């Protein structure tokens, strides 16, 4: 089936078996191998990308169901010469060891910061009527869908907290 996607601002048209996941379409058909396959069952978060701005597990998406959608992958956030603030913070804080979960961690945290700014609550938000702040407890809960086999969680959390603080300063 023909599927049209806008990936990292570039329109792409593919001819795909309906069984193809969005993850496999990105990796095997568009050769955007930054997005990783861990479990292929929605359990690890390595495949996290943005679809129309929201984070999803691309392994549990059929590409044909996203005809016309906008997809952002790690390649669309920044480049090695021009890192996004989150990418730079992950490098600075050693937010990884083997690096396999990292693209998913960065895509997920990128979306998470927007969710906080929008006032979305989480399971650990005490007061549902108030706007949650990015505490370490909020960060852990909101990032629980991204597992790191190397357990680089300390560096990941430090990187996200620093990028969030920079974002707040820039906004002020």
């Amino acid at each position: 089936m023909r599927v049209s996607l806008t990936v990292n601002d570039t329109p792409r048209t593919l001819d795909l078996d309906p069984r193809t996941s969005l993850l496999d379409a990105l990796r095997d058909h568009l050769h955007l191998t930054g997005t990783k396959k861990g479990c292929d069952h929605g359990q690890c978060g390595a495949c996290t990308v943005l679809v129309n701005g929201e984070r999803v597990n691309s392994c549990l998406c059929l590409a044909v169901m996203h005809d016309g959608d906008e997809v952002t992958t790690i390649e669309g956030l920044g480049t090695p010469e021009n890192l996004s603030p989150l990418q730079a913070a992950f490098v600075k804080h050693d937010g990884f060891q083997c690096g396999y979960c990292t693209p998913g961690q960065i895509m997920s945290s990128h979306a998470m910061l927007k969710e906080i700014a929008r006032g979305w609550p989480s399971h650990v938000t005490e007061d549902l009527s108030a706007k949650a702040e990015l505490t370490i407890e909020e960060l852990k809960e909101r990032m629980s869908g991204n597992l790191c086999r190397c357990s680089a969680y300390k560096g990941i959390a430090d990187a996200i907290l620093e990028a969030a603080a920079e974002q707040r300063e820039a906004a002020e």
Partner: protein
Amino acid sequence: MKSFDYVRPETADAAHEAAGRFIAGGTNLIDLMKLQVETPEKLVDINRLDLRGISTEGDGLKIGALVSNSELAADLRIRTDYPLLSRALLSGATQQLRNKATTGGNFLQRTRCPYFYEPHQACNKRTPGEGCSAQGGVTRMLAVLGTSEHCLAAHPSDMAVAMRALDAKIAVTRADGTTERLALDDFYLLPGDRPDRETVLEPGDLITAVHLPAPAAGRQTYRKVRDRSSYAFALVSVAARIAMEDGKISDAALAFGGLAPRPWRDGAVEEILIGEAPSEALFGKAADRLLAEAKGAGGNDFKIPLTRRTLIAVLNDLTGESA
């Protein structure tokens, strides 16, 4: 994954005509198709149907079947008037999954019984008449109420437990075009000798919306007990609303997850509480009533005392000094 035909109708009529398996967020169905536990021949993608949005309806709310779990949890009306629903949704899965998961699909997600997921193990839910490997097997996640000798599976949804406590009704358009609104106890079936039949829906029946009645008085909570503090299914959960007047419980709604093949509610438990002053003895009596017929299968025996303690803790919270 087995191959399938894929269609994406624009209207509900066309969706019924397409006569295939509906897919919404896909977070459960695609997972099960990869394992070949589900092998639909035709997928009917309902995402282009007009089933989105949350609107007021009388004193209550109408929630479209395609509203995502994230959108529903974050909606200010839900957070203010039906907070136990926001809490239940936020305790389920992860933000990535909640962004895709829909209200309709959440009700119809399949059990997490490990034997259902293993095609080489016997499972009456997957293949009627095959037997149940869970009997005498690993039962930690399985049900203690409402089961049968043919199936011990528990319903995994957090959202549905909250909906049961709130007296939500599910709007269904049947394949022949007739519409119905079903309370959850009329929607979900107990396993009996046909655990493969989980709801009254027939192939082609479409959930279009969920209707919430006017907000009810009292304090609300959703308490979920699980093996890790985030991103895990419930061992036991309680959705509760308790109203107090003059030091006595004037109204109560209690629904339970992790315990049964469907969100579990037992009016007799609420009757024990209503009209009485809160006390440890009263709460114990309510827990005794809830669990009178509970039966463990070995690995899940612990759920019985765990439910008792969780219920008592929730009742203490909701009847005590305001937090």
